[in-house]
């Protein structure tokens, strides 16, 4: 219980402590007894660009490695890596985006491990699945070999420098899908590494997921029991999304757009029938898109079964067996609308909570825990139990809420 106290604090904008920034999250964690059960965050982030020098040293190809090293510190048209226009931090209103560089760490442990565990404990998270940030756009890089080279380097760096040293951190490694052979080799090389709970496809890209070139990779994933995830992001250069003029528009649409396309291709082309044991997860699109697409595809399926003859059931029945991360979870004024969405996707077994911390629209566990229509067991399943089964994690609580 929080003790009554009297304190006056002056605000400073030249220092940052994640414990202080998330003090109210820790209060929530204590008030809701998160210490009593497992919480797994299936989508959180670090900023891998802060470790670029280290990561680039892992690039195998000497020409690309030299080019990457030489590009350090260059941005814009002189940079080697692609990026996107965007003001995710609301033009400085989300202060942690800039202030987090002031956070103090010491010792030999990698800064990403130290800072990640701090926010995990503050929020109440036992295990976090860590993803990169700028690399979410790498599938749009015009040079396929750059995507493949950086994916290989990042994955190796992450396994050796982060995952090998911290059992509370896991990851679904980057799959360089624009190079099908490199994607296959990635699963072969890293599938059994410590902390690798699956593989992740960054959704903004323009090669269809049902292309025959990917079948051996999906087969290998299925054989190894490793899930595949599609992590949403936007592409403001996309011809349709390029018509939007504000970030709210490109974000609200873009983070659904690519996952809707990949999902439609995945289902209509019968991949769930071809890979019945492959677990598929959809990350950071919220939930309403799935509810929408289920109804759209089911409606048309009944008239156009000849368009998807591999399907033995309605599209929604396959979609209901996939996994969905929660964030950014739409919370309508009327909870019955959200309850209907939960019902459509079989939330009690298929929904997995995610924070997306430290990004601008992160969610806390309370977004699930405080829902009026869920029982205690359903809350615990969504917050950690479902992900623990999916990732094969020890369900023992290991966090230390401050």
């Amino acid at each position, binding site marked *: 219980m929080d003790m*009554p106290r009297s*304190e*006056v*604090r002056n605000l400073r904008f030249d220092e940052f402590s994640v414990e202080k920034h998330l003090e109210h999250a820790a209060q929530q964690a204590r008030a809701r007894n998160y210490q009593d059960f497992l919480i797994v965050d299936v989508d959180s982030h670090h900023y891998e660009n802060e470790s670029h020098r280290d990561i680039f040293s892992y690039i195998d190809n000497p020409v690309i490695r030299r080019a990457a090293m030489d590009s350090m510190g260059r941005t814009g048209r002189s940079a080697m890596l692609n990026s996107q226009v965007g003001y995710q931090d*609301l033009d400085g*209103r*989300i202060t942690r985006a800039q202030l987090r560089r002031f956070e103090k760490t010491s010792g030999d442990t990698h800064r990403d491990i130290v800072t990640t565990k701090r926010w995990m404990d503050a929020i109440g998270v036992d295990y976090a699945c860590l993803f990169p940030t700028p690399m979410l756009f790498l599938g749009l890089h015009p040079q396929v070999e750059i995507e493949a080279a950086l994916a290989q380097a990042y994955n190796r760096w992450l396994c050796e420098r982060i995952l090998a040293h911290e059992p509370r951190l896991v990851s679904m490694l980057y799959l360089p899908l624009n190079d099908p052979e490199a994607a296959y080799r990635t699963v072969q090389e890293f599938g059994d590494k410590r902390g690798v709970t699956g593989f992740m496809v960054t959704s903004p890209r323009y090669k269809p997921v049902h292309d025959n070139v990917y079948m051996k990779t999906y087969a290998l994933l299925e054989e190894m029991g490793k899930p595949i995830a599609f992590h949403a992001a936007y592409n403001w250069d996309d011809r349709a999304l390029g018509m939007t003029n504000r970030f709210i528009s490109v974000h609200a649409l873009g983070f659904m757009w690519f996952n809707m396309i990949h999902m439609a291709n995945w289902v209509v082309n019968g991949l769930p029938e071809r890979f019945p044991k492959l677990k598929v997860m959809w990350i950071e699109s919220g939930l309403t898109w799935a509810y929408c697409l289920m109804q759209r595809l089911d409606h048309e399926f009944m008239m156009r079964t000849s368009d998807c003859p591999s399907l033995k059931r309605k599209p929604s029945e396959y979609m209901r067996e996939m996994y969905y991360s929660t964030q950014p979870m739409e919370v309508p004024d009327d909870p019955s609308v959200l309850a209907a969405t939960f019902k459509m996707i079989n939330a009690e077994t298929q929904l997995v909570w995610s924070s997306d911390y430290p990004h601008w629209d*992160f969610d806390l566990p*309370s977004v699930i825990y405080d829902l009026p229509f869920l029982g205690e067991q359903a809350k615990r399943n969504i917050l950690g139990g479902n992900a623990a089964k999916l990732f094969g994690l020890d369900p023992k609580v290991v966090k230390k809420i401050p």
Partner: protein
Amino acid sequence: MAEWFVAKVADMADGDRRIVTAGPHEIGVFHKDGAFYAYSNYCVHAGGPACEGILINKVVDIIAPDRTYQGQAFADELHFVCPWHGYEYDIKTGECVGNRRLKLRKYDVVRRGDDIFVVA
């Protein structure tokens, strides 16, 4: 209700603010344009530290009489912004500007001699 010390008047310049923990209450006290304002430091959205973010004026679209868009400008209305997710609040009312039916709890601020207190 009790009065909780915030600051000496001389120590709280115009534009300053303090976060006061007053028993179970956490309160942001602002001194802006000669007035003091005090609100709950818990955002109506996710419980973030609503009073700890930047101060910034309201942004408005400039729409010409012929209804064409002519860019954006800052209005006079001053907001403080929850640093967790960007919810903005009118500093004079504590209203959440995205939905003005939502408000932060407001607290009275009193001056006793050279001292500023918040009532909670």
